[in-house]
C-alpha cells in the first residue's frame, strides 16, 4: 500500500545569471560612495594595520582616507608635479611615493614633511615599494632603470638597467627580503635579487606590462598587460600556467582578496573581474562608469576602492551581517529538544514501538488527497502562492485537469474570484512553461462564463486584457519566425554541409506558436 504522493511541481531552471556562493558574496556591498579627486587616480594602497586607512595618489597629492570618511583625513601635497604610487610599509607607519620629477619621497604617517628624499632617477618614477625587511626601498622609473635604496642613509644601493622601456609596475616578495619584481613596457617581467648584480629571471609577457602581483606563497606570479592576465609558476622557472583573456581593453590593475582565493583585475573596459584562483574562471564581475586605473581591496574584503581615469574614487563598503541579529530575537527551541532520546539504543529486552513518521503535506495536497477540487484550487489562488510561486498554481491546475475535475473546479465562482483567475491567466499565459496548461484553463473559463459576459465590467476588462496579451504574443512569435526564416537562408548559404545542420538550428530555437483558436 502506497502513501499519498504529493503534486509534482515542475522546477524550471532559472534563466540568466546563475546564483552561486560567489555572486551572493560579491553582491553583499552597499551602494558605492563617489569621491572626486583632482586627477586620474593612479594608485590606491591600504594600510596593513587597523584602522585600515588607505592612501590615494592622484595628481600632485596623496590623500589618506579613513574607513568611512568621505573627506581625506590627511593630505601630503609637497609635490611640485604629479605624485605616483604611494605605498605603505608593512607596519603602516611609513609611506613612500614617486613623482614626475624623478625624486622619491618617504613620509611619516603622522608627519607632514618628507623624512627622506631619494634622488637618482632622471625620469618620472611610477613604481616605489618597500622590501619586506622594511629598511630598503625599490623603485622603477621611466629612465628604464630599477633601483634599490637604503632608507637610513638615503643612498642608492644598486641600480639595474636591464629593461628596455619604462618600468611601470612591480612588487616585493613577502617571504624573501631580497627579492622584488618589476614589470616594464618592454613586454617583460624581471625578477631581481638584491644580492646579485643582475636579474635572476625574465618572463616574456607579450604586451606592455601594466601590473604584476606575487601570490602570498611566492610561488605564483600574475602579470597584466594588454588584454591579458597571465599566471606564471615562478618555481618552475617562469612557466606559463594560465592565460586569461576576459577583458576587451587593457588590464590596468590586479589585486588579491584577503583569503587569496580570488583574484581581481580592473581594466580600461570599465569592468572589474573576479577569478577563482583554483579554476581561473570568472566567478563575478563589477561594472563601473569609466575606465579603471587602480583597484584595492581592504583586509577581510571590507571595502573595495576603485580609482578611475576621470578622477573619481569609487568606494564600496560591505553590508553588515544582518542574519545574526534577527535570529537572536526569535528564540527557538534548543537543539537538544530535537535530539532528545534519539540516540537511545534499544536494549535486547526492550519492546520497540515504532511511531510512523508524520508527513507534512501542503494545504492544497491535503485537499487534493480528499478530492476537494474547488477548495484545492482556492488554496493555490491565494496571493502569496499565486504571486511568488506561479508554478505551484499551474501544477495544481494541471493535476486537476488530469483528474478531469478542472472544469467543475473553475465553475461556480463569483466576480471577485473570476477576476483573480483571469488576472493570473492573462499574466502568465505567455510564459512558455505555463502556456499548455493555461491555454486549457483560459479555454474552459471562456466556455463556462460565456453566458454571463457583459454582466460585470471588471471581468470584461480582464477578458479584453487576456485577448490583448495573446494577440501580442502571436505577433511576437510571427516576428520571431520571420527572423528565423532569414537566418535559415543565411545559414544555408554559409554551410557547406547538408540540411542536417539546418534542422538542428530550427528545432533548438523554435518555440511553440500559441494556438490561435482561443481568443477572449
Amino acid at each position: 500500500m502506497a502513501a499519498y504522493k504529493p503534486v509534482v511541481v515542475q522546477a524550471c531552471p532559472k534563466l540568466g545569471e546563475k546564483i552561486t556562493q560567489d555572486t551572493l558574496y560579491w553582491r553583499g556591498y552597499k551602494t558605492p560612495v563617489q569621491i572626486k579627486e583632482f586627477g586620474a587616480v593612479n594608485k590606491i594602497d591600504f594600510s596593513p594595520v587597523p584602522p585600515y586607512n588607505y592612501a590615494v595618489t592622484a595628481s600632485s597629492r596623496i590623500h589618506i582616507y579613513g574607513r568611512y570618511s568621505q573627506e581625506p583625513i590627511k593630505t601630503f601635497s609637497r609635490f611640485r608635479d604629479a605624485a605616483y604610487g604611494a605605498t605603505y610599509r608593512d607596519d603602516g607607519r611609513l609611506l613612500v611615493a614617486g613623482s614626475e620629477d624623478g625624486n622619491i619621497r618617504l613620509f611619516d604617517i603622522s608627519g607632514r614633511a618628507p623624512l627622506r628624499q631619494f634622488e637618482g632617477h632622471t625620469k618620472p618614477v611610477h613604481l616605489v615599494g618597500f622590501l619586506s625587511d622594511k629598511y630598503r626601498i625599490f623603485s622603477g622609473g621611466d629612465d628604464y632603470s630599477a633601483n634599490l635604496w637604503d632608507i637610513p642613509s638615503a643612498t642608492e644601493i644598486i641600480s639595474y638597467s636591464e629593461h628596455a622601456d619604462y618600468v611601470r609596475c612591480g612588487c616585493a616578495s613577502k617571504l624573501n627580503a631580497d627579492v622584488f619584481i618589476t614589470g616594464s613596457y618592454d613586454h617583460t617581467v624581471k625578477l631581481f635579487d638584491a644580492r646579485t648584480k643582475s636579474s635572476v629571471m625574465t618572463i616574456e609577457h607579450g604586451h606592455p606590462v601594466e601590473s604584476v602581483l606575487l601570490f602570498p606563497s611566492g610561488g605564483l606570479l600574475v602579470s597584466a598587460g594588454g588584454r591579458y592576465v597571465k599566471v606564471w609558476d615562478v618555481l618552475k622557472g617562469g612557466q606559463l600556467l594560465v592565460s586569461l583573456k576576459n577583458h576587451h581593453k587593457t588590464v590596468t590593475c590586479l589585486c588579491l582578496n584577503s583569503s587569496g582565493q580570488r583574484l581581481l583585475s580592473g581594466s580600461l573596459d570599465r569592468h572589474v573581474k573576479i577569478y577563482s584562483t583554483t579554476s581561473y574562471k570568472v566567478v563575478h564581475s563589477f561594472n563601473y562608469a569609466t575606465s579603471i586605473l587602480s583597484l584595492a581591496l581592504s583586509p577581510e574584503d571590507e571595502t573595495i576602492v576603485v580609482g578611475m581615469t576621470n578622477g573619481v574614487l569609487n568606494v564600496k563598503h560591505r553590508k553588515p551581517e544582518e542574519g545574526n541579529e534577527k535570529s537572536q530575537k526569535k528564540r527557538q527551541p534548543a537543539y537538544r529538544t530535537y535530539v532528545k532520546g534519539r540516540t537511545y539504543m534499544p536494549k535486547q529486552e526492550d519492546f520497540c514501538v515504532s511511531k510512523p513518521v508524520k508527513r507534512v503535506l501542503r494545504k492544497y495536497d491535503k485537499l487534493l488527497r480528499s478530492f476537494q477540487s474547488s477548495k484545492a484550487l482556492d488554496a493555490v489562488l491565494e496571493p502569496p502562492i499565486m504571486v511568488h510561486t506561479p508554478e505551484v498554481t499551474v501544477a495544481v491546475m494541471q493535476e486537476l485537469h488530469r483528474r478531469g475535475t478542472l472544469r467543475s473546479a473553475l465553475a461556480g465562482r463569483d466576480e471577485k474570484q473570476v477576476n483573480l483567475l483571469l488576472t493570473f491567466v492573462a499574466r502568465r499565459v505567455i510564459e512558455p512553461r505555463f502556456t499548455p496548461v493555461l491555454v486549457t484553463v483560459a479555454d474552459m473559463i471562456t466556455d463556462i462564463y460565456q453566458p454571463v459576459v457583459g454582466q460585470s465590467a471588471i471581468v470584461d476588462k480582464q477578458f479584453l486584457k487576456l485577448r490583448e496579451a495573446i494577440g501580442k504574443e502571436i505577433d511576437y512569435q510571427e516576428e520571431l519566425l520571420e527572423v528565423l526564416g532569414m537566418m535559415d537562408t543565411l545559414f544555408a548559404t554559409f554551410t557547406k554541409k547538408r540540411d542536417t545542420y539546418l534542422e538542428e538550428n530550427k528545432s533548438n530555437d523554435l518555440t511553440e506558436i500559441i494556438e490561435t483558436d482561443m481568443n477572449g
Partner: protein
Amino acid sequence: AGVRGGLRVPGGARAPSPAVTTFPLCRYLLCASGDFVKVYSVSTEETLRLMGGHADLVTGIQLNPHNHMQLYSCSLDGSIKLWDFMDGIPIKTFTVGSRLLALYTPASAEDSVFVVIPKKGERDTFQLVSVKLTKGAGQDLEARELSVVLDGVGASMKHIAFGREGAYVVSVKEVNLQVYFFKRKQLNRFSLSTMKTKGGDNHFSCVVCHPTEDCIATGHADGKIRLWRNFHHRKEYTYSTLHWHHDIVMDLAFSVEGTRLLSGGVESVLVQWHNESSCQKDFLPRLGSPIESISVSSDGALCCTLHTDNRITIINSNLRFSRSIQGLIKSRDVKTGLVVDPRTKALVLNGEPGHLQFYCLQSDQQLFSLDIVQRQYIHQAGLKQSDLVKVAFSARGTWLATVEESEEVTDPELQLKLWFYSEETQSFELNTRINTPHDNHITDMCFRDMDEVEDDPLILVTTGRDCVFKVWVMVEDTDPEAHQSVSWSCDFVGSYHNYQATNCCFSEDGSLLAVSFEETVTLWDSVTWDLKCTFCHPPGNIRNICFGRLTCSKYLIGATDYGFLCCWNLLTCALEWSAHLNIVVLQPDPLSEHIAAVSWLSKESSLFVFKPNEPRPVYVQRNLCKEKILLAAFVPRDEPETISSEKYLWLRRSQLFFLTDTQELMTLSTKSLEERLTPSSKQLAVEESPLVTPFSLLLGKHRHQQSKEDTDLGKLVVHNKHEQASPAVKELLHTPAHVLPSASFLCTIFINSLLISKENKSAEEVADEVEMESEKPEDDSEEEGDVAEMEQEDTSHMELLGEVTCKLSKSQEKELRKIRKTDYSWISAF
C-alpha cells in the same frame, strides 16, 4: 526429446480469469491460478505448493465443509477434484461432463455440491445444478446425477450466494434477484428498474449473504450496495442502500460474525461498513490497483483482496495492511517491452501504473518496483493517465532511461528521465528530467552499448513521430562546486526528408547508428553524425531493425509491414537475402549471433531462429501458440546449459521469453514443467507449529501434564520411545499411499521398527543417518541412477524429455534408501 513450446512460466502465469482465494486455516491461503491451485503460506508469502491436474482453467475452489483439510476445485475441463492440500495430492476426481463455471459447497448439503454449468442447447444461459458426489472406491468417479436448482443464473462465481446454514440460495443477474428456499421449495423473484436515472445503474455485480441473519447484500454497477431483508415475502421485502463507491462494486464480503461488511471496487479502496443504519465506515485507501475479489479467513483474523494486476493483499482485521503476495504484476498494457536488466538479469516491464517492475524469473518474485512517474494515480475510468512507455538500460545497467507520456493523442505530456544506479542506496536515483524531449510521441530509444571503452561518453538516441531523432549525451559539469557532477543534454538532432522516425539501433561496436524513417533505414556515423547510407525495401514501413552480432556484425536485419524480412550487407551496401514473413517481433540474442523472429500468420505465431549470414533458419517452430506474441526477450543464463541436441544449441547461452497479447509470459524450455519447479515448492511445511492461542496454551499444558503422569506410572514407555525413535514408520505413515512401494516391501520395515533393539544407541544412530540423508536428496541424484534402473516402474505421467531415464519420485527414493539402511542395521544388531 523435444522443445516444449508455449509453456507458461510457473507462477508467472498471469491468471486470465479472476482467481479465487480462500483461507483454509489462518496459515495458508489457497488460490486458483490458471490451471493450478496454489497454496501460499500467509506468514512467509511463499508458494508452498502448486497443485496441478486440471486440464483447463480452474474456475472455483471451495473447502470441504466436512473436512477442513480438504478442498474441492472445479474447472472448465468438466471435473471436480477433491484435494488434500496439505500434501498436495488429489483424493478423488469427479467427472461431470460439461464446463463448470463456479462451485459452491454449503455445509448443509451432505454429499452434493453445487456447480454452474451452461444450459444445454442454449448459448450464454447458465444454470445452477446440484451434483451428487458418489461414494465410490476408485479415484476417478463419474458424477452424472445432476439436478437443476436454478435456471438463468450468472456465470460468475460472485453472482450466486448461499444463505445462512444453506437454507436458501440467491442468484443475481442483470437487474433480477431470485431467492430459492430449499425447504419450502419456493422461488422469490425481485427486480429493480432498468432505467438509468441520474447516472444510476441498477445492474447487479455481486451478491453475498449474511452468515447468521436473513440478509442479502448486493453490489451494483453504479457503486451502490443494497441490503435486502424480509425477502421471504414477495411483496413486503425491504432494502436499504449504502453508497460510497463511484464505480462498480466488484466484490462484497461479510465478516465471520456478520457485523461488518467489506466492499471493494475500481477505486482500489477497501471499505468497511460497520452498521447499515449509521453509515459508519472505515477505509483502506491506495491499495495499488482495482479490487477484484475479497475473502475473509475462517477465524476472522485476516482478510485478503485480490487485485486485477495479479496480486493478493493480506489485510488485518483492524484494516491494516499486512503483506502482499505478488509475482509478475499485470499491467493494462505492456508498452515498455520486455527489457532485461543487465545488473540483476531481471525482466523489466510495466508494473503498477507508473511503476517499473523488476521481476526475477528464477524465484518468480518481484525484486522491486521503481516509481517512475511519481504522481498520485487516480483509479477512475476515462482519465488521461500518464504512464511509462519506453525503457532502456545502458550496457552495464548503471543508467536507466525512461519515457513517460500521457494518453492524450494530440498533446502528450512527454518526459524523458535518466536514472543513475546508486551503489549506496542500491537503487536508481533520478539524475536528469527532460520535459518535452520530442514534440510528438517517442517511438524508440536505445543506448550505445560500449562495454570495453570506458572513456567514450554514453550516448542515448530517441526517435520520435515529430520526424527527428535526437542524440543525448552525458555532460560532465566541470565546476567543482556544482551539485551534480553529470547531467544529460541534447547533442544532435537529425532527420531524413521529414519522415517519421520509427526505430533506432546501434551496431555492436557502437560506430554506426541505424534509424528507420518509415520506409527507409538510414545509417549514421556515431562520431560525426554524418549520414552514411540508406537502405530501402519498398513497399511497407520498417517495423523492426537490428544489427547482427559477433561474427555477423556486418549485417543489418529489418522487418517491414508488408511481410518481408531483409538482411543487408553493410560492407557491400546491398541486400544479402530477404524472406517473405510477417515478422512481429525481432529479437537478437546478446550473447550469440542468433536472432529470433516471431511471425504472425493466420492466427498462429511461429518462431524462426536464424543467423544473419545464412538465409536458412537454424530452428523453426510452427504454431508456437494461438495467441499473438507481442514481445520477446533473451535472458542470459547464469551458466551455459548442456544441451545435447544440435537443434537447440541456440538456447545454450540464453533463454527466450515471450509475452502474448493475453499477457501471458511463456518460455521455450527443453525441460518439463515438473523439473523446473524449485524443490522448496514441493515441500509443504507440515511441521509448522500451530498458532499459539490461549486455548492451545492451556491444552498444551494439560497434555504435558498427562504425559508426565504416564511416565510416572511407567506405562507405555516403550511405545513412546518408538514413536519418537522410528522415523521410518513416521515417514511411512506420512507418505501418500499411492507412491509407496508394495506392501511386501514395507512389511519388513514395519516389523523391524516394532522390535526393541538391544542397544538403543544404534537405533538412534540409524535415525540420525536417515535424517541426514533425507535432508539432501538433491545431492546424490546421480547415485540413484542404478536404483532407478533396478526399479523399472513407470511413474512418468508427465512427458519426460532430455535424457531418457525414468526417475522415481522423491519420496520413493527416500523410502528405498531407508530400506537399505534399516536392513543392514537390523542384521548387524543380530
